[in-house]
């Protein structure tokens, strides 16, 4: 799991690539939690390069969603590949996490 952080005025954009599985999920969780601690309560996760999300990955997303919510902010995802989008739909995560097609749309959702 590779993570690139880009702090924008509207939101902190975290571009992830690789597999969000049992190995990758803690990396994303730790990094984003640190960002929330630093004050970035609006997180945009760009998943365009994420090829796979496991149940451990979903759990991490849930943890982060709760964390930004209690920090008074929000979390949005964008650029999901079809298989990852299927996982979100099947698990019902699309009901609690805003999914957007691209970054611009996601930033709109975070406003």
């Amino acid at each position, binding site marked *: 799991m590779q993570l690139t952080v880009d702090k924008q005025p509207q939101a902190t954009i975290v571009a992830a690539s690789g597999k969000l599985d049992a190995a990758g999920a803690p990396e994303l969780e730790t990094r984003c939690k640190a960002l929330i601690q630093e004050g970035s309560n609006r997180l945009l996760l760009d998943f365009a390069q994420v090829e796979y999300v496991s*149940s*451990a990955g979903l759990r991490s997303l849930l943890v982060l969603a*709760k964390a930004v919510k209690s920090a008074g902010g929000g979390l949005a995802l964008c650029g999901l590949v079809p298989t990852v989008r299927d996982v979100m*739909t*099947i*698990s019902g*995560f699309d009901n609690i996490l805003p999914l957007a097609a691209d970054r611009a749309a996601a930033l709109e959702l975070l406003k």
Partner: protein
Amino acid sequence: MKLLTWYRRQPVRRKIFIPFFAITLFSSTIFTVYGFIQNVRAIENEIDKRLLIAALTMPQLLPPDYFDRVQTPDSITEEEHWNNTRRLEIFLSNVGGTYLYALHQVSNRYYFVASAALDTPYWTEYEKPAPNIYEVQKTWEPNISTTPDPDYGLLRSVVMGHKDAAGRRFIIGADIHAYEVEALKRRAFLNFFLMGFASFLLAVIFSYAASCSITRPLNRLSTFTRRLVEGGFSADIRLDAAMFPDGNQTRAETAILAYDFDQMQANLAEHIEQLKLTQSARERAESELRIAGQIQETFLPGPFTPAEFGGRVQLQAAMKTAKQAGGDLFDYFALDDAHLFFAIGDVSGKGMPAAMFMSAVVVLLRSAAKQWRDPAEILRRVNDDLAIRNESCTFVTLFVGILDVRTGEIVFANGGHNPPRLRSAAGAVAAVPTKTNMVVGAMEGQTFVRETLALRPGDVLALYTDGVTEAFNEADQLYGEARLDRCLGALPAEATAAEILRGVVADVAAFAGAREQSDDITMLVLRCCEPAGAKTT
């Protein structure tokens, strides 16, 4: 080259000793030979000086007018001659020589007119004069030479002239046997050889001791190392502290080496001890996880008996756990004579937390199923029970169904789980269309949609966890739904639930090849059968 190779292979002690030995041998030989040659020269000089003194002193030992009186064979009385002879003999024996004499030449013949030898009377003819007798007459200066005398052998001799008052020339000679000189030289040689040999021996002993003192600590270290290896690097095996009395505050390299070695051993023993602790901790963790897996299995139901429900339904379920204890689960039991409850689920994450969460899910699910009999309500209750104070955000995807074995109708609710596959009696395979609901345990207050599905005889419902479709092969590809559907479709129409399950598991295993299983693989297969005997509803 060969010698050099041989030398390189020698132990350190010999490496030090061999050059020491060679240098010592060389230098003692040089010193012995040089000293001997110098000494031989000194001996020769000394003897020549002695002979010269004897020759010069001789006239003084005779009466002052003696040579003037030597005229004819009768000039000197026998008595006087023997008196002189005795005097000369005593003198010569004190000085150290063989012969001392005076010669008188009369018409090319030479006569002894004085001598230290008792066997030479006055006027005895010297019949075969040595070459130096003629030689001295050329200058009358003292002549020193080694002369072969036909009668007396090889001599070192001094001959010189002596004038009497009338100016007549006499020849005075002093000789010593060459073999006596040689004996002196031999003694000198023996002395020098013994001295040289003694110093050589001393140097050899010293260098041997020195080489041993260098290699002894090395030998002790190597013995220690061997002991260490045999003793499994035990902390009890320590180096004798006498080998480094001043710790590392010394300039003796071997002591420093020994000290460092001892420190290394102490550190090594500590590391090994720590390693053992770490190892045992890991082994404990692994065994705990294994036991957790065993406990987990006890939460799973026992085998489904075909006789249940009059053979109208076959059910086969199996779980193949990955290396770590996982969070997959399945369950089934008869609610009454006509209703079969079944469920499959996958807890997020792996290891001990997932295993513990799974146990809670199974317990909650069973009690809720017995109480509510409605899959949607069951999920709602389980969800709320799990979600309260669920700080870790662990959740479970659950597919829960209740089959009415009389009609084949299934009432189900899907809490974020993969849609099951349905194979019709005709062989067509498709995903069961389900409404999407949230996963179970993530958030309180969720509601779940209750749905229905009708199974006809010969239909097969295959429930699975993502361990099946998300099995990776060596090329990092996913098994996927398409392969699963193809596999299910390819299995014979009359295949039992057990055969279908085995077929899919085998297909997934063949696909994964040598790739390690990363997630639990769990399947639950339901097959609706023609009722045994007459067709009734």
